[in-house]
């Protein structure tokens, strides 16, 4: 009796285990012919070479009865009959994307090989290495077949130069020039990187095969601003076209940190607040000198007991000044120091010729001390020697200006400015020609904040030494921080200190996808990842589009991909908010040229096609030499298709049997009086 129950229980236990793991029986179908996918590139760059070549490929492959696909930037299954009718109209070539798709979506067919027929002109920006590496692990060789060119002219052309989207001064970068060569195999060619006519770097390349070769250059821009460079290859004998031996490109070089030189005539609260604000800004590198003692001051100790250092007039005004982006003169009376006319001329040149900036503040010393000096020509105001000690509120004339814009909403901004605390003391002045008064004294109407563009540079003038009251006298001290930050930003015209910045390339080709990056930071330049980003784009026909933008990383980076289907100028505006607090905005624009990527480069990229073949253990052929026999495609009989699977465990009778067994076991136990 006990033995019977034990057997019954063991059977139930085994049945339950089987129900849990559900083993299956697979029935395999054995195959003898390999399964091959043929990928035919029908992008526009194949236009000149397609018709005969498509048929040639078909003819040579038909014996193995492959599965055909056509592709440009999308992959589509076609029948063998459609190959003859194929026209090369695809707008982009995405070989990498197609291999990735074959890997992910067609693996059910357990491919034995892929035959890739293309000119190798990958023009959708993707990282090839990773995809090819992943593909090579699948043990599926890619047989690369390139078409025979109609035109096989001897030529060297610079077809593409890749540069990073954001470039900073004194920070090294690598740019890559893609150079196509035909008819120069075995030769050594020189490539130069130039800035205007100065050769910055030269490289020599041994040409191993026809097609594209990537040449990297290391560059460290020493100046900020828009700088034009060029990549050049000398003209070699027999070249059919020499106009494509030179390609220009521009880099918008941002200063890595804004270098500020702050000279202050005497210690003051204004100095304390301004220095502290600049010092706390991570985007600013500050060097400041404040005059702590004048010759008339008597200190009853030796110099060694004082912390004073000599004021290096000659060094600053002859050499060092040119290493800075912004000069601040605060209550600074140049006539008390051995500052000569040439030094003042250097300040003028620093602004007007070198395109740098000046922030000048009057305090105890009226700005009229600069009368009849080169600095006077820079001032946006005509100052009088008079300083009146009136108490006044600021009347803001241009609240929408980047310097004074504290919030995106116009009425809120006006409200904030109206509620700003009183200031005191003003250097009487009138507005100079071509200058803009941003704020004046509400009481006396004298200009208080004035700006002007002088030559290549910018100047800002503040005629009161009590601007610090915007911090101490205000409910929100950050308004002062913002005004100062925005002033520095405007003066130096720098994107790197903006709280909200759009990074975009300056030009694209039609049908490209623009990948735009937006960086959002708070007042302390800490990245904000949960900001609301309002992204508006004006397309070439003038229509405005609103685009949804989402955070991409934890570090305050937001991104948007935009399909560029029409040529012309695109304007972008981005405003960012942290809850309801306005963080800032940025504008940018780029041009889309009506030149498709396909027509930009019609040469065959043998090197890329060889690389794919080599890394996947495949073979490389030109279409005329292509022979399916030489391709070494073998069917993997071990990995045959699953014909069908037997799974008895999802059948209803099995559950019935289990219930019956349980019932029997229960019955026997009851009968034995074990319950």
């Amino acid at each position, binding site marked *: 009796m006990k033995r019977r129950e034990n057997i019954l229980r063991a059977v139930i236990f085994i049945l339950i285990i089987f129900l849990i793991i559900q083993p299956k029986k697979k029935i395999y179908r054995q195959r003898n012919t390999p399964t091959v996918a043929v990928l035919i590139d029908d992008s526009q760059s194949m236009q000149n070479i397609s018709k005969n070549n498509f048929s040639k490929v078909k003819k040579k492959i038909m014996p193995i009865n492959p599965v055909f696909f056509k592709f440009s930037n999308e992959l589509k299954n076609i029948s063998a009959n459609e190959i003859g009718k194929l026209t090369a109209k695809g707008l982009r070539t995405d070989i990498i994307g197609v291999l990735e798709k074959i890997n992910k979506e067609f693996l059910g067919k357990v491919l034995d090989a892929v035959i890739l027929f293309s000119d190798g002109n990958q023009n959708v920006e993707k990282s090839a290495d990773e995809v090819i590496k992943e593909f090579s692990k699948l043990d599926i060789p890619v047989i690369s077949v390139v078409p025979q060119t109609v035109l096989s002219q001897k030529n060297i052309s610079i077809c593409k130069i890749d540069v990073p989207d954001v470039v900073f001064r004194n920070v090294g970068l690598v740019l890559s020039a893609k150079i196509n060569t035909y008819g120069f195999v075995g030769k050594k060619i020189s490539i130069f990187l130039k800035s205007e006519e100065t050769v910055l770097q030269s490289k020599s390349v041994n040409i191993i095969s026809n097609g594209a070769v990537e040449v990297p250059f290391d560059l460290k821009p020493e100046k900020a601003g828009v700088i034009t460079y060029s990549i050049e290859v000398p003209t070699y004998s027999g070249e059919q076209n020499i106009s494509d031996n030179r390609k220009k490109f521009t880099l918008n070089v941002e200063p890595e940190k804004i270098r500020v030189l702050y000279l202050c005539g005497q*210690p003051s609260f204004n100095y304390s607040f301004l220095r502290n604000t600049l010092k706390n800004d991570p985007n600013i590198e500050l060097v400041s000198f404040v005059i702590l003692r004048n010759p008339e001051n008597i200190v009853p100790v030796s110099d060694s007991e004082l912390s004073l250092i000599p004021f290096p007039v000659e060094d600053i005004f002859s050499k060092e000044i040119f290493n800075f982006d912004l000069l601040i003169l605060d209550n600074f009376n140049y006539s008390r120091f051995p500052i000569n006319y040439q030094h003042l001329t250097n300040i003028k040149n620093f602004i007007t010729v070198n395109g740098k900036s000046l922030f000048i503040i009057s305090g105890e010393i009226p700005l009229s001390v600069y009368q009849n000096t080169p600095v006077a020509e820079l001032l946006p105001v005509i100052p009088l020697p008079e300083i009146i000690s009136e108490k006044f509120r600021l009347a803001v004339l241009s609240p929408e200006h980047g310097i004074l814009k504290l919030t995106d909403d116009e009425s809120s901004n006006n409200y904030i400015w109206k509620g700003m605390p009183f200031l005191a003391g003003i250097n009487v002045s009138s507005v100079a020609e071509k200058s803009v008064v941003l704020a004046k004294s509400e009481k006396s109407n004298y200009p208080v904040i004035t700006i002007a563009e002088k030559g290549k540079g910018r100047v800002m003038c503040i005629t009161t030494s009590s601007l610090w009251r915007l911090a101490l006298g205000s409910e929100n001290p950050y308004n002062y921080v913002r005004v100062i930050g925005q002033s520095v930003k405007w003066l130096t015209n720098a994107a790197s200190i903006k709280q909200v910045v759009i990074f975009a390339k300056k030009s694209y080709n039609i049908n490209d996808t623009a990948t735009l990056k937006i960086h959002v930071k708070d007042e302390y330049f800490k990245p904000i990842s949960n900001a609301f980003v309002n992204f508006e784009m004006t397309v070439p026909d003038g229509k405005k589009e609103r685009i949804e933008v989402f955070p991409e990383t934890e570090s305050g980076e937001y991104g948007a991909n935009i399909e560029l289907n029409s040529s012309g100028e695109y304007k972008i505006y981005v405003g960012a908010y942290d809850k309801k607090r306005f963080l800032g905005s940025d504008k940018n624009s780029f041009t889309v040229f009506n030149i498709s990527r396909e027509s930009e480069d019609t040469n065959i990229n043998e090197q890329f096609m060889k690389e794919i073949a080599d890394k996947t253990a495949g073979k490389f052929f030109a279409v005329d030499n292509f022979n399916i026999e030489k391709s070494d495609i073998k069917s993997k009989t071990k990995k045959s298709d699953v014909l069908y699977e037997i799974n008895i465990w999802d059948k209803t009778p099995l559950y019935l049997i289990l219930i019956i067994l349980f019932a029997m076991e229960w019955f026997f136990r009851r009968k034995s009086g074990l319950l």
Partner: protein
Amino acid sequence: MKKSSIWFLLTHLLTYSLTHCLYCQQGGKFVFAQLKYSGNWDPRPSAWDRISEFLTMSTSVKSIQERRIVTISDDELFWSPFLVITGDSDFAKFSDDEIKIIIRYVQCGGMIFIDDSSGKKGSGFDKSIRDMVNKISPENPLERIPITDAMLKSFYLLLEVSGRVITNRYFEGCKIGERYSIIYSQNDLFGVWEKDNLGNYIYPCDEKQRWEAKKMTINIIMYALTGTYKSDTIHLPFIKSKLK
């Protein structure tokens, strides 16, 4: 119009004119503001007169000669980013609203220098001040200011702190950002400046110690006006060679 209304208007007009006048004097000058509170708030009433004289003589700082006496609720408090609190005995606790005003003052860039004139450890003033500072700056409590801090080299190169008495060989401070926004001395720093009408020092003190305390006072004012300027890289080699 009633007599009381006229009186009210005149009083307000006078107050407005006086405060307006004070603001007008300010310009870019240093203002010595001292807090008046319910306690012995002014044990060293003539210190600023002497400090002001010495400051103008030895440095390029331009200051307003009259000290500005303010209460916490005065708007004038926010016209001076440097506030002095002195005392020698305990005082009534500040109300929550008053504490909020002081917090705002410090957060908006103001600096407070506190001097315990009693010159005694654990004095009533010390207890009241520590209680107040704990409320103002709970996140950045009082800590010892190291002798390497910019405060000790903002004008004179000092190797130690001084005062009328040396209660502590250090000052304490609450560091907000990169500088100390609250500085606390228990050494009766202002006591070394006090003179009678005949020009004699009121409080006896070793002359060398008195001189060091005077230099320290100037350094604190310079620190309020220049912050950590003397910690800038450009000064370091000069200061290092001078200290040798």
